[in-house]
């Protein structure tokens, strides 16, 4: 059974149809891993591409994320058998002193839509809390978000603290947000920078290899 209709429904942000077609695909004998890998992930990549091209905006992204969540509710428990190769574990949060979360939310959904397991710590996350979460979850990647320039010192502290426990830099750190630039990311020792949620997911896939 072709997953093209499922893909289109996800791109359209049509949760009801996504759920119906996910049911149908499973009933038809497709594995949860295949539905995710061949159906949902390519569709989320298209959603991300449209966002990068300025065709999709925050509402469209969130509606597609909601539709994907509808599918994941059906697929999740069937994926615990290890049939789906998770791309990795990502700890995500907005830096201490900063309450903005929409950008981080979009990054989280694009990461899930690219096959990562995401642990979202929320907003105004202290450097120690980031570091503890990395240790406790065995994360492969950390994503740190900031909208306010004034909170950038906390971002630097966060990176320092994570590196202290991981001098070999096995855990990859990526940063983003309105005041972040590539030169700044290079200067403070981040492993990567992305200007938006969609390219953040592409970056994460590269860093996770």
């Amino acid at each position: 059974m072709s997953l093209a209709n499922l893909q289109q429904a996800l791109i359209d942000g049509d949760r009801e149809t996504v759920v119906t077609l996910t049911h149908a695909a499973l009933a038809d004998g497709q594995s949860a891993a295949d539905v995710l890998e061949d159906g949902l992930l390519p569709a989320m990549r298209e959603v991300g591409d449209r966002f990068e091209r300025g065709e999709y905006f925050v509402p469209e992204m969130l509606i597609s994320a909601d539709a994907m969540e509808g599918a994941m509710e059906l697929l999740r428990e069937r994926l615990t058998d290890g049939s789906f190769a998770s791309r990795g574990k990502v700890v995500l949060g907005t830096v201490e002193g900063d309450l903005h979360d929409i950008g981080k939310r979009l990054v989280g959904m694009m990461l899930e839509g690219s096959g990562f397991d995401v642990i979202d710590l929320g907003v105004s996350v202290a450097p120690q809390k980031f570091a503890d979460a990395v240790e406790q979850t065995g994360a492969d990647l950390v994503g740190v978000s900031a909208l306010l320039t004034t909170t950038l010192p906390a971002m630097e502290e966060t990176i320092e603290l994570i590196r202290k426990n991981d001098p070999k830099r096995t855990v990859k750190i990526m940063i983003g947000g309105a005041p972040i630039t590539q030169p700044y990311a290079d200067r403070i020792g981040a492993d990567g920078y992305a200007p938006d949620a969609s390219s953040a997911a592409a970056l994460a896939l590269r860093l996770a290899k």
Partner: protein
Amino acid sequence: MSAADFLAAIEERPLLLDGSTGTQLMARGLRSGECAEVWNRERPEDVQDIARTYFAAGSDAVLTNTFGGSPIALAAHGRRGEAYELNRSGAEHALAVRPEGRFVIASIGPTGQLFDPLGPLTPDSARASFSTQVIAVRDAGVDAILLETFTDLKEIQCAIDVILEVTDLPFLCSLTYDKSPRGYHTMMGVSIARAAEALSLAGAVAVGSNCGNGMANMIEIATEYRACSPELKILAKPNAGLPELRDGATVYTESPEDFAAHAPALLATRPAVIGGCCGTTAAHVRALRTALDNA
């Protein structure tokens, strides 16, 4: 002065707003993540001093320190119940230092929440939140209201509904746009053309943009607004460029001299209201004052 005087003034000449309040509060010790509106109660001299400085620099109107004063936004600081008091006192501080012939405009920003189903906001909860703010600044006696830094038409319309219901105050609408391969849109997907049409229809005295962009982009935004309508009263309030962290301090990249250099191009779009947003100072306001007086 009064609302009627404000409406008369905006008909006869471009009005100059102030510069950034947030940047000035931070220069006086406000820390990142702290609630700016609390200073209306705890640091009133500083709040008044900022307004006084902008009037002295040549602002025709200053904005009240109430931008984040919606009950919903204050709730994030555990201060939802203080909304009426903080908004009213914020307005009263600016009014206390308002010189003859100048104006005080209440600044009202978005709630920070997204509408259901993307978030917890509903039209009822949005209107209830804006209601407290609008009533408070109305009671204080401001001359007009500026709804600024909005990105969602539905949300700004809720604020407009409240204004029309509880006051006769003139109101201005300002959205924040991002530049993309498809032109300028807010992050929620609102285009300049759509905003111009919807908000002038809704009764806004002026429609425009603030924040998110420095002078160059703001000139493009104002140009696009002007292309939508020859008659539209346009508001343009750019940032002092984008902020950078240099030696641990936040530095905005566009200087007062940059503002002065760009001002003629901005004035060529015939704006009705101009000002400075994040990172701007009294020196930026003076640069714009000079440009306006020499135009």
